[in-house]
């Protein structure tokens, strides 16, 4: 099967000499849900900009659904939908007009454009706001409007550049559900985000970019397996005064009702629970101290800087 996106030895040098991309290469298979992560200024938006034709590449190859952008960018662009980081629609136009107009730019006839606009505005809970001038929408609504606009030509590859930035938790979760459903229906999705929990929950594969170079490119499970140890937080019912001793595990008392446990990857939690039970301490709930991906991400990025 043709890859949804192939990026080979992609370079970008901006005017003034800043080298944003130093020959990155990666592939995204059809049906994939991929995270493209990296700190600010790493080159994520430049990569997305080149794929969506907003940035001219210096050298390298980009193929979208098997079409080389140097040979037929117009054809390649039909397969891509882009949700940019910043609001980039006319703030004085009405919601439905923005979506319908975008359909027109893709050559979709008026009648079908109307249907598609209705479909995606309803799916993204914006149909009630269709006659509203876009600048009057809330931040979350504006983000959803950009997703509806990007979906109106039903692209095979959807690229979202920090789509949930500044969006409240409830809305973020409803957007996740929408994206997961979209991916199930066959749309390939590339997501950049600073919420690593989001990437961990949604994405199957991950590429980490730093200083214009790919420093990690693997599937999410393999990456998470690289974690040597994990820290768990235990909320206990009883008033704990002394830290229980458990062989092979490091326990700390955060406060009288909270314990932290450091465990190596090959250890289980059973001995900890057994000891706590013997000491008469009842555990009410348990959670990871930090997001696992976040820990790895920080490590990978720091290592790449040291190298």
């Amino acid at each position, binding site marked *: 099967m043709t890859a949804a996106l192939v990026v080979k030895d992609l370079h970008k040098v901006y005017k003034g000499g800043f080298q944003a991309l130093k020959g990155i290469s990666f592939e995204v298979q059809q049906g994939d849900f991929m995270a493209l992560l990296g700190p600010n200024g790493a080159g994520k938006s430049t990569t997305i900009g080149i794929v969506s034709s*907003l940035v001219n590449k210096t050298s390298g190859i980009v193929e979208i659904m098997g079409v080389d952008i140097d040979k037929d960018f*117009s054809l390649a662009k039909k397969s891509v939908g882009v949700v940019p980081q910043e609001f*980039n*629609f006319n703030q004085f136009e009405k919601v439905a007009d923005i979506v319908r107009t975008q359909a027109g730019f*893709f050559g979709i*006839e008026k009648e079908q454009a109307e249907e598609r606009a209705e479909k995606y505005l309803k799916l993204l809970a914006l149909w009630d706001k269709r006659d509203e001038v876009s600048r009057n929408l809330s931040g979350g609504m504006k983000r959803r409007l950009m997703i509806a606009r990007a979906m109106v030509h039903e692209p095979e590859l959807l690229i979202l550049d920090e789509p949930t930035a500044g969006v409240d938790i409830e809305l973020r979760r409803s957007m996740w559900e929408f994206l997961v459903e979209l991916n199930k229906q066959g749309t390939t999705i590339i997501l950049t985000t600073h919420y690593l929990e989001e990437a961990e929950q949604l994405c199957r594969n991950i590429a980490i970019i730093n200083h214009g170079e790919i420093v990690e490119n693997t599937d999410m499970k393999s990456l998470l397996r690289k974690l040597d140890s994990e820290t768990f937080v235990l909320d206990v019912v009883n008033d704990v005064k002394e830290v229980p001793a458990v062989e092979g595990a490091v326990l700390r008392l955060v406060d009288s009702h909270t314990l932290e446990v450091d465990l190596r990857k090959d250890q289980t939690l059973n001995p900890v629970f057994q000891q706590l039970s013997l000491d008469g301490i009842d555990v009410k709930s348990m959670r990871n101290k930090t997001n696992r991906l976040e820990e790895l991400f920080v490590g990978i990025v720091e290592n790449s800087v040291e190298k």
Partner: protein
Amino acid sequence: MEIQKQFVALETIVVKEVRRFSRIWVQTLLPPAITVALYFVIFGNLVGSRIGEMGGFDYMKFIVPGLIMMSVITNSYSNVVSSFFSTKFQRSIEELLVSPTPNHVILIGYVLGGVARGLSVGFIVTCMSLAFAELHIHNWLVMISIVFLTAVVFSLAGFINAVFAKSFDDISIVPTFILTPLTYLGGIFYSLKMLPEFWYNVSLANPIVYMVNGFRYGILGVTDVSLWLTYGMIFLFIVVFYSWALFLLNRGAGIRS
């Protein structure tokens, strides 16, 4: 992109542009009507009655074609320059750039938007002029073709200005310091034949002279310059400006990093 889809994209751009200037008609359609009405009252009626005849017509009748043309030139230019620069400024140009719409369709779409506003204002001003002067059209074909082609020229020029513009100041420099002087010295208010030989020859370097005179020929049947030269100049400008604008668009000047 298939031809049929290109037409859909073109129609979308034109409709969007017409919707834009219609939505803000108080800023786009009303001011030129008021300005030209003042010209008619002051220069045509009050001052013109003391000037007498010019080019074989009373002064009011003589200036009507020029004033219509001035409105068309100014509005077709300012529509494209402000609209395209605004899309750059708001980054909504990205909506078009990520789509498969070819660059020539984008250019033609914006130009037709500018032509639509130029002709709308031209129509309003023409209707107003009927209250001040009786007009008998000498040659409909010449009148319509000249006004349309002139609107195309200045829409293209506005597009080029917008591509280079980096701030709102940049979109007012050309209209203020180049377009307005050339328009006022383009034979709207006087016949070139009144000028001394030196200034007559200098005036022939002003492209607006040809457009105003060509349009005046279409309405009144008189012109200071050859009609063929007028068409030649207009087509030359269209070819040069279109090629330049498309070259800039293909290079992504001012719109792609």
